[in-house]
């Protein structure tokens, strides 16, 4: 089981995403934004950070990186893809996920341990959780407000594609408290808070985040992946 983690110029959390994957028991493959193939990986993580300095719009330039053509094609074939924070922004800019992420409503960068509720435990990345389970991840973002038009929001809710929702406070003005969503098939998930920072009791708010990486390993082991 190989999880590829893409590094864009300006990525910050690629090492943590690889480390989380390894703690979950996966082999990891570092990938570069200029790569033209996915080196036979079974799943891809687009990590957090500030790809291309967040110039233009967060994720807008990363979307056109050579590796993204491969990631989009593989995602459409059913390969699990997880975008965390800046990775979520890239997935929205790539149109793999609907909607967009806007500047936090209160204009301030947020860095906090964030309680979220896992709403959908049947995606490729969340099957290790129970639907409705409360977990703590780390939120650290300046442009994390999820927006989409009302019909898109209604469709996401109706199809169970809201994967995670903020609990206790809405930290950034996200519509309907949305913290993460999936595509129709459930193989592509975008999430604003960071599960990869919650995998070690020593240096994070617990180990709730491991479930994302364990889920995808289970998903791949079940053979439900087209490379």
């Amino acid at each position, binding site marked *: 089981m190989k999880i590829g983690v893409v590094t864009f110029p300006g990525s910050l959390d690629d090492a943590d995403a690889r480390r989380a994957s390894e703690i979950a028991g996966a082999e990891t493959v570092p990938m570069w934004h200029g790569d033209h193939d996915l080196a036979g990986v079974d799943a891809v993580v687009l990590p957090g950070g500030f790809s291309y300095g967040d110039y233009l719009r967060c994720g807008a330039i990363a979307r056109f990186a050579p590796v993204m053509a491969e990631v989009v094609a593989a995602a459409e074939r059913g390969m699990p893809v997880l975008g965390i924070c800046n990775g979520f922004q890239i997935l929205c800019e790539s149109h793999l996920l609907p909607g*967009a992420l806007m500047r*936090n409503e*209160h204009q301030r960068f947020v860095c906090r341990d964030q309680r979220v509720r896992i709403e959908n435990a049947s995606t490729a990345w969340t099957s290790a959780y129970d639907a409705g389970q409360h977990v703590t991840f780390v939120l650290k973002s300046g442009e994390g407000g999820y927006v989409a038009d009302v019909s898109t929001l209604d469709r996401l809710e109706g199809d169970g594609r809201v994967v995670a929702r903020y609990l206790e406070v809405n930290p950034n*003005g996200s519509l309907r408290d949305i913290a993460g969503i999936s595509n129709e098939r459930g193989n592509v998930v975008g999430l604003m808070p960071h599960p990869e920072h919650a995998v070690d009791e020593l240096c994070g708010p617990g180990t709730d985040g491991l479930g994302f990486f364990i889920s995808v390993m289970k998903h791949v082991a079940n053979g439900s992946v087209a490379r």
Partner: protein
Amino acid sequence: MARVVVDVMLKPDILDPQGKAVHGALPRLGFQGVVAVRQGKRFELEIDGEVSDQRLAEIDEIAGTLLSNPVIEDYTVSVQP
């Protein structure tokens, strides 16, 4: 050489926290009477040669794919004299 300007603005129904912050600062500076502020982006594209219809169609594509995100933003293209 010709110059083509692409203006990108958030769609009217999208909340603009930056514009709101700018608006909030105006009374503190003593400026009254500004009812709302929306913040956008302006791109100036220097074009080699004439801006033909085909060129303009390409610029429209640039504006719609890279310079703006159609989910949250509208754009206008204008050729500078």
